[in-house]
């Protein structure tokens, strides 16, 4: 009897085994690519599984007989597959239709961004302050990027792809910052007036830039200020050159911020090996206030007020007489107001309005002669953006700028007033998921010249792989003649540049590689006729001025950044080669200008030690020799200065003192005390030669910053 039951049980075993069936397989899309995180389950049961990154799934079910396998997931069309379950493992591969996401195709030719938001950012904002050799200045960090000339410390501004310092425009929240740098002092580079912590993003264009902007033959540095601060906080800082206090109060949807500073470079100068004698150490003070309000989900209002006063006195090489020095005293006051408002009208339309005002007064003494430079600018901009979907965006905008410059030098006076108006249209079109095109046109009219210009722009990008793309950018760019000419009553036509550039970029897993080639042709550059050449940038006699100048620049820029290979170690290498010649200003032949090095190389390394709570940065910069004027050489600007080398080091120790996040930093520039020579100046008769030196060789800077944030107070 027992035997009978046993036999019956054995006979029934297959039925029990049939109770569980394993189903496995892959889910692939129409291109044969695996679909990740699709849910596969037997209809009417809770037996199912999700696919992994290879599209593989495996489920076990107690259901039997004819069943339906359901496949669901994001961006896939639901799929049903009939299966039979009888205990035998089933292999079921499924094909589904998947909506293909638009890949991030971003036009990268001519643009290098530093941002928290975009995956394609070349630098993040923190890089700006932590890059050795950048001296905590935006312009300093930008100089480690390809396409930018290494400034030996004797010029104020950014020189990009063959352009001089006047050809780069600084933009803050869409509005021109007229006096982005401290007032220029002959032979001593000035820092920008901005604190890098003000900005959430930096888009640095080395050419072929958007139709939103004009009046820059070479380049635009487009800075976006932060929105609401992260938290209410107070910052106190002190360094070798001054003290500052800042703070922000964050309310529900708005914030108020303030900063104040006092600076005095006496302690810094006492230790630095200065090549320039300061009879009055640079000092100054300033304050700023800011109000930011999030007016709606997409609405943001920002207004900023900055006021600063600075003075300094130094003995500079006499620009008009090599080998001699003269006293140069400067008192400067600068006011800058910037107000913007962005908002959405509806899902498809947004608008932007901006207004800025700046006023800059310089009182200068050249030995006993008194000179003044005053400039004012008022600017307004309005834009409408139409975004009907993620494949099309249309921007329509206009701007109006009124600016005036006045200068006196002893009894000489010069001034001009200009009203510049512009309108522009630009579209971002993604006709295919891996191809983007950006056509644009900008029209400008100068009241001063009673002339206008039309500058078409075109950029495009083609995604060539998951992480790589090719971009092109081109356009015509116009710029008024330098204010030095306009103030003396000359009215030359707009200067013109044509940019053509192609870029190949790979951004993957914290590694970036960029290769960019470009060609620029300059036309209608301003020339001085009928006056002998002098290397004196502060000359007054321009002779006859016309637009007969021209030039070109061509070159290649390479950038490699790797944050991945070594833990906590990040480095980048940028190299630029340029071949450029121009006939402009008082040049007597088409030559490589005296501010251009054919080869520029920067190697930046950063390491963060968690154990030591310290970040270290080391930057090596190299620039090949620059042309200089030797009256004895029949070839105009035919001589080259020695190569430039600089090794800089920065360390920052991070700690918490009494609940205040504190950073102590030290930075050493030119640590090998390299005696760089930036060129030579010759006496009138050519018999004596004098070195053009950077303002400092080795120099040292240190300071601290303490920040009390709300989170330290244990608000939970």
């Amino acid at each position, binding site marked *: 009897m027992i035997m009978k039951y046993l036999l019956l049980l054995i006979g029934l075993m297959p039925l029990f085994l049939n109770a569980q069936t394993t189903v496995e397989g892959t889910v692939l899309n129409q291109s044969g690519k695996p679909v990740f*995180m699709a*849910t596969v389950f037997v209809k009417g049961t809770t037996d199912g599984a999700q696919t992994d990154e290879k599209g593989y799934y495996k489920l076990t079910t107690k259901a039997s007989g004819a069943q339906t396998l359901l496949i669901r997931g994001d961006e896939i069309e639901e799929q049903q597959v009939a299966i039979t379950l009888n205990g035998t493992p089933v292999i079921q591969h499924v094909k589904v239709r998947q909506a293909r996401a638009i890949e991030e195709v971003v036009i990268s030719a001519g643009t290098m961004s530093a941002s928290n938001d975009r995956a394609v950012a070349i630098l*993040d904002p923190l890089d700006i302050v932590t890059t050795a050799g950048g001296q905590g200045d935006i312009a300093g960090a930008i100089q480690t990027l390809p396409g930018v000339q290494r400034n030996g410390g004797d010029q104020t501004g950014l020189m990009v792809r063959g352009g001089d310092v006047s050809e780069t425009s600084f933009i803050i929240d869409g509005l021109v910052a007229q006096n982005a740098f401290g007032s220029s002092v002959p032979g001593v580079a000035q820092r920008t007036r901005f604190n890098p912590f003000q900005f959430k993003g930096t888009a640095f264009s080395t050419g072929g830039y958007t139709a939103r902007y004009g009046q820059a033959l070479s380049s635009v540095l487009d800075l976006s200020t932060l929105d609401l601060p992260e938290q209410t906080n107070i910052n106190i800082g002190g360094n070798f050159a001054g003290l500052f206090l800042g703070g922000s109060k964050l309310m529900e949807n708005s914030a108020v911020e303030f900063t104040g500073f006092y600076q005095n470079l006496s302690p810094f100068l006492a230790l630095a090996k200065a090549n320039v004698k300061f009879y009055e150490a640079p000092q100054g003070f300033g304050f700023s206030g800011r109000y930011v309000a999030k007016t709606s989900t997409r609405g943001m209002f920002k207004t900023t007020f900055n006021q600063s006063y600075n003075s300094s006195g130094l003995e500079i090489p006499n620009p008009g007489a090599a080998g001699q020095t003269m006293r140069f005293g400067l008192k400067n006051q600068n006011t800058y107001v910037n107000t913007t408002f962005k908002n959405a009208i509806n899902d498809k339309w947004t608008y932007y309005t901006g207004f800025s005002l700046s006023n800059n007064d310089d009182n200068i003494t050249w030995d006993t002669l008194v000179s003044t430079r005053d400039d004012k600018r008022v600017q307004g901009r309005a834009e409408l953006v139409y975004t009907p979907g993620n494949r099309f965006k249309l921007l329509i905008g206009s701007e109006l700028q009124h600016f005036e410059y006045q200068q006196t030098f002893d009894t000489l006076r010069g001034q001009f007033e200009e009203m510049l108006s512009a309108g522009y249209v630009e579209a971002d079109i993604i006709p295919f998921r891996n191809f983007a095109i950006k056509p644009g046109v900008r029209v400008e009219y100068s009241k001063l010249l009673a002339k206008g210009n039309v500058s078409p722009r075109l950029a495009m990008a083609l995604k060539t792989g998951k992480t790589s793309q090719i971009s092109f950018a081109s356009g015509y760019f116009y710029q008024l003649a330098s204010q030095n000419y306009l103030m003396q009553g000359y009215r030359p036509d707009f200067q013109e540049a044509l940019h053509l550039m192609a870029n190949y970029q790979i951004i993957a897993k914290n590694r970036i590689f960029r290769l960019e080639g470009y060609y620029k042709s300059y036309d209608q550059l301003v020339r001085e006729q009928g006056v002998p050449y002098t290397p004196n940038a502060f000359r007054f006699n321009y002779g006859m001025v016309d637009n007969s100048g021209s030039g070109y620049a061509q070159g290649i820029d390479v950038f490699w950044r790797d944050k991945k290979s070594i833990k906590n170690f990040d480095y980048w290498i940028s190299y630029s080669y340029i071949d450029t010649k121009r006939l402009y200003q008082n040049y007597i032949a088409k030559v490589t200008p005296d501010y251009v090095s054919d080869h520029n190389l920067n190697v930046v390394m950063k390491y963060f030690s968690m154990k030591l*709570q310290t970040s270290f940065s080391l930057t090596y910069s190299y620039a090949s020799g620059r042309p200089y004027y030797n009256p004895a050489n029949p070839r105009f600007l035919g001589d080259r200065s020695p190569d430039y080398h600089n090794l800089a080091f920065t360390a920052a120790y991070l700690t*918490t003192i009494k609940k205040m996040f504190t950073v102590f930093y030290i930075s050493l520039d030119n640590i090998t005390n390299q005696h760089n020579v930036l060129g030579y100046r010759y006496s009138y008769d050519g018999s004596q030669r004098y070195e053009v030196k950077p303002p400092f060789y080795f120099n040292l800077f240190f300071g601290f910053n303490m920040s009390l944030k709300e989170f330290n107070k*244990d608000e*939970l």
Partner: protein
Amino acid sequence: MKQILLSVVLAFTLQANAQDDAVIKDLAPVCADFDSLHTAEAWKAKTDQLAVLKEKYPESWMTVYYYAYSCIQMSYFEPSLAIKDAFVDQAEEQLAKLEEKCPLKDEVFIMKAMVANARIGADPENRWQKYGKIFEDNLKAAKAVNENDPHIYLLKGIATFYTPKMFGGGAKNAKTYFEKAQAKYDLITNTDVDKPYWWGRSTCNYFFGEIAKELGK
């Protein structure tokens, strides 16, 4: 007429309750051992089950909630950044439905904070600045709704524990938050899936052990 209307309302209410009961019945065994799962395989099995339950009960906030939770857990076990992000994307996609359906608004903020924290966890160096604020804001918002929610202090404690000392983190600073979390867990007596305040109790205890190890070094 009034009676008809009342019966219709009652019918809908009963139907909804019946639906909730069914969800709870299916979910309870799946969620019961949440606090004792410590491997990718174990979480993968949970995610599979919850994904199907989410399909079975598309109107329920509970399935969405626990599915998002399991996706976040999966992201912590996954080594690849892209796949980590794909898991967090899945969790994030559930937030809209959770916001619409979940009656426990504090837990909606908790889930948002967890999503932000998972983003940081995937790539801390590059993301703390953006997502740190979102994480903090959501914890504050959760506290404004229900200051007895233990998850607020648990999440803050975990985040503080993994934040370097120099930025105000470390074991000592984190301990305060875990103690607060534990005090709040002591107020919770049930393990109902429709009141998900219970999860994390053993995680809290685990961190007390870790803190003791750190401070004893």
